[in-house]
């Protein structure tokens, strides 16, 4: 991350009572980057967001906004004026949509003409111009969410902090809001920290991701780094690498091909390991190809004869639990499923590239 950092924490400790809820050695979000915080409930995502917004006191450590330490009233006011938080609940006032969206600007004593222009602009952004005169209490969940987003963006913040907030919405509104938010983040190049629940939302809205666990950051990097190369089993499990298998490195070729034995089968992977090492083999379900028993047409290094043990409908896809001598999970679209005549008990070919296998060191 070479960009100038907008928000940064160093050796941060936040305690609630005597319990340490956040313990972060270092985290820095560069100008225009969008960072997603993911992790199980209670991992400290929301607490970290509030801390970054300057709304929670630090017990130890340093918070820096635009490179300057936030340590007195002036710098705290500076941070709060430039950061906007969108909470899980819309938290709208019992007032019109207009007055709700104008709230932050009124706090800044912006002239009413200016407020009117900014509110119009941001309502337009979120496609809710028609709601301007409505009472906030009469809005649907999706509309209220849009108003709360508009209210945050109305102050033209340098930093937006967004708590996972789409879960309560019905799928179409959720999809529409995320898509709008994606556009706005891309257009405005606002620095964003998003506590998201969902891996797909993360891929759409963020370039970077930090996986949190028990108040600590388990791994931090670009989405590609973290999702494809999890540092440890916890991260791997959490980012949705469905197949995590224990194996032992058998042989390593000079060009970096690693042969890993898993339950008597050999999986080819790429990486720097030595023979005899204990490893985890991670295969993401979207990297597995399913085909009929026509051999010779598959370029992937790993081809296995597999039995379909289970088919689970998951949203728009089927999740296949395969038995290739070791368990493997794959996603497949319903049309492909039909073409291949898949049902439970059928035998298919499962293949994946050597580069799609992510190896991690295993201690035990």
């Amino acid at each position, binding site marked *: 991350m070479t960009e100038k950092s907008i928000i940064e924490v160093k050796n941060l400790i936040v305690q609630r009572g005597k319990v340490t809820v956040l313990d972060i050695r270092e985290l820095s979000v560069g100008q225009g980057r969008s960072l997603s915080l993911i992790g199980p409930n209670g991992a400290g995502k929301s607490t970290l967001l*509030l801390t970054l*917004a300057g*709304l929670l006191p630090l017990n130890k450590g340093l918070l820096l906004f635009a490179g300057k330490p936030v340590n007195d009233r002036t710098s705290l006011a500076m941070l*709060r*004026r430039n*950061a*906007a*938080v969108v*909470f899980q*609940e819309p*938290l709208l*006032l*019992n007032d*019109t949509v207009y007055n709700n969206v104008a*709230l*932050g600007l009124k*706090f*800044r004593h912006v002239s009413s003409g200016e407020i009117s222009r900014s509110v119009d602009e941001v309502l337009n952004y979120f496609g809710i111009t028609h709601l301007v005169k409505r*009472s906030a209490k009469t809005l649907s969940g999706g509309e209220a969410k849009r108003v709360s987003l508009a*209210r*945050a963006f109305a*102050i033209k913040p340098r930093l937006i*902090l967004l708590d996972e907030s789409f879960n309560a919405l019905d799928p179409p509104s959720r999809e529409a809001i995320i898509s709008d938010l994606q556009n706005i983040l891309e257009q405005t190049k606002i620095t964003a920290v998003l506590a998201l629940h969902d891996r797909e939302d993360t891929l759409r809205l963020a370039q970077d991701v930090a996986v949190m666990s028990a108040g600590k950051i388990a791994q931090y990097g670009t989405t590609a780094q973290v999702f494809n190369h999890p540092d440890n089993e916890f991260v791997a499990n959490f980012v949705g690498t469905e197949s995590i298998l224990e194996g032992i490195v058998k042989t390593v070729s000079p060009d970096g091909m690693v042969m890993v034995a898993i339950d008597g089968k050999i999986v080819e992977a790429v990486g720097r390991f030595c023979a005899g090492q204990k490893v985890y083999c991670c295969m993401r379900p979207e990297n597995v190809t399913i085909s009929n028993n026509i051999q010779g047409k598959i370029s992937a290094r790993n081809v296995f004869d597999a039995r379909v043990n289970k088919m689970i409908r998951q949203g728009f896809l089927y999740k296949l639990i395969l038995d290739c001598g070791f368990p493997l999970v794959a996603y497949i679209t319903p049309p492909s499923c039909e073409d291949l005549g898949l049902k439970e008990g059928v035998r298919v070919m499962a293949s994946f590239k050597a580069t799609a296998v992510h190896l991690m060191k295993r201690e035990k």
Partner: protein
Amino acid sequence: MELIVQGIIKAFELIISFDPEVLGITWLSLKISGTATFISLLIGVSTGTAVALTNFRGKKLVISLINTGMGLPPVVVGLFVTIMIWRNGPLGFLEILYTPYAMIVAQAIIATPIVMGISLAAIQNLSPNLRLQILSLGAGSLQMVWVLIKEAKLPLLAAVMAGFGGVISEVGASIMVGGNIKGYSRVLTTATVMETGKGNFDIAIALGIILLILAFLVNFLLTQIQQRQQAR
């Protein structure tokens, strides 16, 4: 039964004829209880909000005390105020015993915990994140408190009604510190007590009805304000 009918007829006679004495008593009741409610609002809303928004050692004890104060017996308040402003009392130099001022003080003491307790509950009842949300939009502390009070205006108006209702109908303290002096500190409740004592039930009933109408009108007005906010 005849007594009640007579009382009602008398009440309407007194109201329609604009009897100057009854009018004076009614007006004084309204002034004293209105002023007392206003004072209790200033103290009650600000203190209630402050207690709701700050964390300190013994907060629960303070809240319990305020809630107990909501049921403060008027005669106890009357006794306390009388002792304080008695000629030889600590505040005797004010020389306000048996004046409307003493009644305002006593009624304000009765209404303040009611307003304070309801304000406190109203502010506490707002989502705890709302406060952070408002701060995160760049509000200063005063701006934040003001937005919260506006957001809680529905229960706060209920606090006004409860406070006013408590003091307009109160008699013990008023009689003790006001003395029920004709044309000076006589209010609807103290006059009702006196007329009942004298056996003038028709006038007593009339005063009672006027008191009810007064309470109704004030609450009707406040309810209008409250519900208009709600409907928008």
